[in-house]
């Protein structure tokens, strides 16, 4: 990997958790000693070869890593331009990239002597990954999930319950991911002594954004090795969907200093950026403070957070990880957006052309592939992060298509 120079994009955050003006530690005093303790424990664990070795073992034998880098031949033909590869994170145990991060955090919780795990979830993939690893390590698990999401992600709710987790439906606010996060924070404030909060994305107070990024960066590190093995060189472009942005950050981070590589993040445009019903916090938001960090947020003129909308529950969040906000301002990552319609079309296209049913989240990244790939020459190498599988979304997609017929 490229060495960290003075102008590196990979040196953040600073010791106070800032990526430029973003990030930070905007939490209630009750939680402050806990996140300081967590930061300390993570710093020690990260430098401990035993911790790394144990994690590598679980990643290989339990998660099933490395995930393949797959040449999507028919999609490449269909687009008529760049050579398209999928990073197959949907083949991980539990069906998405989320497990990479949860494994690291649960192993850290065990080191810290914590005996109770809480998590928030949107689409349910982070909740399922957390419930799974809690089952494996014998820890009680409570997952907060907006009641709207409980309804539209029933298969995942059932999976979590079968895995022994308690799913608590959140009825406050917009009843989606942001409210699940509020409720998880309220639980943590109440149960400070024994509880570990396993955050699912590269957001929240420092050290979460950096820690989750580190755990997810295995996606990009493997991709580097795999593309070099397959093509003898680095890729020319990377593309991933972004809600909070953990799968994207995991793919992007190891490549940030390879300046020739184009990097695209795709936000959820819901009914359209001008409809007022979307989840694109970079395209339609501005910097503010929520859930422990400063970042781009959807809000009104009074600083009140607005409800996000996306057909994809995993992208239905009015914010984005602070490091993405910084990379946006630095111009290193280009942010695009895909509507519900575009995502569902890509979901169908990928299923029919490649025999891979993608998660609706990943379908947002796929939705932007044809327009970018078709303008590139045949020797342009593009990597799409196929961050999750779509079994959980079949009901949502069926209902969406039905509503379009009417």
């Amino acid at each position, binding site marked *: 990997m490229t060495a960290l120079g003075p102008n590196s994009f990979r040196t953040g955050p600073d010791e106070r958790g800032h990526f430029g003006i973003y990030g930070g530690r905007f*939490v*209630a*005093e009750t939680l402050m000693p806990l996140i300081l303790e967590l930061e300390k424990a993570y710093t020690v664990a990260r430098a401990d070869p035993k911790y790394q070795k144990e994690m590598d073992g679980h990643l290989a034998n339990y998660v099933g890593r490395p995930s393949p880098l797959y040449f999507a031949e028919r999609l490449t033909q269909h687009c008529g331009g760049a050579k398209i590869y999928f990073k197959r994170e949907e083949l991980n145990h539990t069906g998405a990239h989320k497990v990479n991060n949860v494994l690291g955090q649960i192993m850290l919780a065990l080191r810290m002597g914590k005996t109770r795990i809480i998590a928030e979830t949107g689409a349910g993939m982070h909740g399922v990954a957390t419930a799974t690893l809690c089952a494996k390590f014998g820890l009680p698990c409570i997952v907060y999930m907006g009641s709207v999401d409980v309804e539209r992600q029933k298969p995942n709710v059932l999976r979590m319950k079968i895995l022994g987790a308690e799913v608590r439906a959140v009825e406050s*606010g917009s009843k989606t991911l942001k409210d699940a996060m509020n409720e998880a924070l309220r639980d943590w404030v109440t149960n400070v002594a024994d509880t570990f909060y396993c955050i699912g994305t590269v957001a929240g107070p420092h050290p979460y954004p950096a820690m989750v990024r580190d755990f997810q960066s295995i996606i990009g590190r493997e991709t580097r090795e795999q593309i070099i093995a397959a093509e003898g060189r680095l890729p020319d472009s990377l593309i991933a969907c972004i809600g909070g942005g953990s799968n994207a950050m995991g793919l992007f981070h190891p490549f940030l200093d390879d300046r020739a590589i184009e990097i695209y993040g795709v936000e959820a445009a819901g009914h359209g950026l001008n409809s007022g019903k979307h989840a694109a916090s970079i395209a339609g938001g501005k910097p503010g*403070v929520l859930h422990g960090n400063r970042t781009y947020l959807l809000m009104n003129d*009074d*600083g009140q957070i607005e409800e996000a909308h996306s057909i994809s529950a995993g992208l239905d969040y009015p914010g984005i990880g602070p490091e993405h906000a910084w990379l946006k301002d630095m111009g290193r990552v280009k942010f695009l957006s895909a509507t519900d319609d575009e995502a569902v079309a890509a979901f169908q296209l990928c299923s029919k052309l490649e025999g891979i049913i993608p998660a609706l989240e990943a379908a947002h990244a796929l939705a932007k592939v044809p327009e970018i790939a078709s303008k590139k020459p045949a020797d342009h190498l593009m990597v799409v992060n196929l961050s999750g599988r779509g079994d959980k979304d079949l009901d949502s997609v069926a209902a969406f298509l039905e509503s379009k017929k009417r």
Partner: protein
Amino acid sequence: MTTRIGRRFAALKKEGRAALVTFTMAGDPDYETSLAIAKALPKAGADVIELGMPFTDPMADGPAIQAAGVRALAAGQNMIKTLALVREFRKTDDATPVVLMGYYNPIYIYGVDRFLVDAKAAGVDGLIVVDLPPEEDEELCLPALKSGLNFIRLATPTTDDKRLPAVLNNTSGFVYYVSITGITGAAAPDAGKVSTAVTRIKRHTKLPVAVGFGVRTAEQARAIAEAADGVVVGSALVDALRACLDKQGKAGSGTIKTVTDLVSALAKGVKTARSVAAE
């Protein structure tokens, strides 16, 4: 620099009693009613008035105060109106300290400099911003102190002796001790533990220590007031208000009196604390 908060706590110390600090949400259930309640609070026995600045995502608040914020926002409350409410209050009361309490984002979006100028001009005395720990002092705490506003920090059961000096440094007006690890309006505090904690904090500061989170009854207020310099009551008042709204969420003729009656009872509890303790 003496402020209304400093003067009020000094005067009460001479009286030999603790302060009753009340929390109500600005704009709950509507602007006019919340202004009328604020105006009636000092007469009912409130020594310091905390006004909530409503926010969509109050991470440290329990269901009662969450719902109060939702009602206020639904009725059109915003930062401009909250500051207007303080300005109106000041027209008839120049002595009772007013503290604004809430979360950072609405202040950040209003603009820190503009907010401090407008808050000071409106007659605000202090700020409590839940999601600004000392690690983020440069955001608002230091500018607020510079502009002559008190910045009141929360100390909690998780704030150990090593961390307390950092929390108390740059705190002014009073220290707000959160009596439980939890959200507002949750478990009732244990008066014995609170007394120990207040003693611990007082080893590190000369500032008055007010105690809140979970205080609901006159009896609890009395017990806390034996050790603390102030007792904060919020969720109980907000709940009392909610209980007398009609089905459309509108205030009725008895709404204000219901709140002030509870404040009077709490004030009585606070006032009898030391005399009972001394017997």
